């Protein structure tokens, strides 16, 4: 079952809008007086559809999607946890959602207080001295963090010298992309078979040109970087900084803090660790945190608490500058704040415990069948491999597509790049033991099918609105927009 494109419902005269009569019948001549006729457009190129049709169209489209509210979504590195309903309700309160960013600070003291408290919570959770709330998503936080690093080295007269950013080969693609965007040269650090940073290799790379290293901990293989102290010491002794990619912070909530491990700059993904919805690809929010000595370089504006209440802090002369048009993703911050208050300190700790327990439970029960190339205790996610099924002509992708047939969302495939035919599974703390057991059952069943009836996997999924799309055709015969006649 596919759904027609919205333009296909269009017919002159249909409408889903309403407005007061006097404006609907506005005099075109008046308009022409105000805006020269030649500056006015002829057609706009939007469909004309009635309200019931709009509602059915988008409801049908929604039904063609899979979401965390439907079922198990073990997408590794993405932390697909439950998005609480109360968070959506509070974020849509009029006294929050209708605030305009250019209002006088005295008119939204409640919102400022909330953001100020959230900064303190995140500072406590991460062990960083100061939190800044503005970056819009993980990559944006990384970019701001890299700008801070660059500006810091310029400030201490090492701008030209510190041109290298070290990045493990297991890192998220955003890390090298963000560092490259501010002009750092990327040097890759190798991983051990366990997926951890190869410290011996790291040692050979450290020199006076190294500005820093970007690390995810636990790393993208789901393994804690046990040598973090040695690495931090090596880099700090070299005058370099440590950047923490917070994508995997869910493993550490209430257990350990990047600030204590020596990280100088961090970002968090509120749309991962802090329960805010992904929305099919955003909006996220990625506050950054820094140690005291980097505070002056933070973006502006920022909030401060004064004797007269909360207000905007004056711009520091060393600030990297403004990074957003209007504000942070405030609605996402509201949901995060609500989640932290709901969880409390014990809840946060139990969340990371359950997340780690769930991942290890899955790993332990599947590692015999799906070769576990990372032979260490994993944290909140485990990376299995489908490489032993290649002899049946079955790849990780085919296993993933077959999982869909069983009503679950597939794990992450082909990441991290260092593990061949990877299946990266992150169950999160939101899953019950029953769900984990049924997933394990499904994975075992699929392993059998791969041997006895590989076609079943190669042609999967079988019950979705569409089958596997032709990606070559999409890229060759590019059709990325319908142009209305």
């Amino acid at each position, binding site marked *: 079952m596919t759904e027609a494109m919205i333009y296909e419902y269009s017919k002159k005269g249909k409408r889903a809008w309403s407005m007061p009569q006097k404006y609907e019948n506005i005099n075109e001549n008046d308009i022409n007086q105000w805006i020269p006729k030649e500056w006015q457009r002829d057609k706009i190129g939007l469909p004309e559809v009635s309200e019931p049709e709009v509602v059915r169209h988008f409801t049908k489209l929604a039904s063609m999607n899979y979401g965390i509210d439907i079922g198990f979504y073990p997408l590794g590195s993405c932390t697909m946890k439950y998005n609480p309903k109360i968070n959506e309700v509070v974020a849509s309160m009029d006294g929050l959602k209708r605030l305009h960013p250019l209002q006088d600070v005295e008119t939204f003291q409640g919102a400022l207080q909330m953001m100020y408290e959230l900064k303190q919570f995140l500072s406590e959770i991460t062990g960083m001295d100061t939190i800044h709330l503005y970056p819009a998503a993980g990559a944006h936080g990384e970019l701001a963090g890299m700008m801070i690093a660059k500006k810091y080295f310029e400030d201490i007269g090492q701008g030209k010298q510190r041109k290298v950013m070290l990045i493990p080969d297991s890192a998220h693609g955003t890390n090298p992309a963000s560092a490259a965007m501010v002009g750092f040269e990327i040097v890759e650090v190798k991983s051990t078979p366990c997926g951890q940073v190869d410290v011996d290799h790291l040692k050979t790379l450290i020199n006076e040109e190294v500005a820093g290293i970007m690390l995810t901990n636990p790393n993208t293989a789901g393994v804690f970087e046990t040598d973090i102290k040695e690495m931090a010491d090596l880099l700090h002794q070299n005058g370099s900084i440590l950047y923490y990619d917070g994508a995997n912070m869910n493993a550490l909530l209430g257990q350990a803090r990047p600030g204590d491990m020596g990280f100088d700059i961090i970002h968090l993904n509120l749309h991962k660790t802090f329960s805010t919805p992904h929305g099919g690809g955003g909006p996220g929010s990625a506050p950054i945190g820094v140690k005291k000595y980097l505070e002056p370089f933070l973006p502006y504006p920022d909030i401060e608490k004064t004797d007269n209440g909360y207000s905007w802090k004056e711009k520091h002369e060393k600030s990297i500058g403004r990074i957003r048009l209007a504000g942070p993703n405030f609605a996402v911050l509201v949901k995060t704040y609500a989640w932290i208050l709901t969880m409390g300190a014990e809840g946060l700790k139990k969340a990371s415990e359950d997340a780690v327990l769930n991942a290890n439970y899955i790993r332990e029960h599947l590692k015999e069948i799906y070769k576990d190339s990372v032979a260490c205790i994993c944290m909140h996610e485990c990376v299995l491999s489908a490489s032993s099924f290649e002899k049946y002509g079955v790849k990780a992708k085919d296993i993933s597509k077959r999982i869909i047939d069983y009503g679950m969302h597939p794990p992450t495939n082909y990441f991290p790049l260092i593990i061949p035919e990877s299946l990266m599974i992150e169950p999160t703390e939101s899953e019950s033991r029953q769900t984990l057991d049924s997933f394990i059952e499904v994975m075992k069943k699929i392993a059998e099918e791969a041997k006895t009836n590989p076609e079943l996997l190669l042609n999967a999924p079988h019950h979705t609105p569409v089958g596997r799309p032709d990606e070559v055709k999409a*890229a060759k015969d590019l059709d990325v927009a319908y142009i209305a006649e």
Partner: protein
Amino acid sequence: MSMIKDDLKYTKFDEWVKIEEDIAIVGITDYAQKHLGDIVFVEIKEQGETVQKGEVLTSIESVKSASDIYAPLSGEIVEMNQDLENDAGLVNQDPFGKGWIAKIKLSNPEEINELMDSEAYTTFRQD
């Protein structure tokens, strides 16, 4: 098993070079096109640009990857294969023929000696 042609020169980046007087015709090998998968795009550079050996000559995209093609020899780009603009798949279908990528007018013909012959490339690919 990938095809390797005897009368061509090769690089370790899986490019082939055919020398015709002072012009080098450059493409990617059968091995490379198989490795990349369905090629959907080859960047067509302006004629007249000069490149040094080892610099990025152009880039090539399949659905799931993008790779740089490095200039096997120094010189001026005198022609790019315009047919690839409409059908980059020619690189898959006929890597040594219709799927050629660029013609470079050599500025330092001695560099030819640094390329592999088909025998050396066969050994290189077997390793």
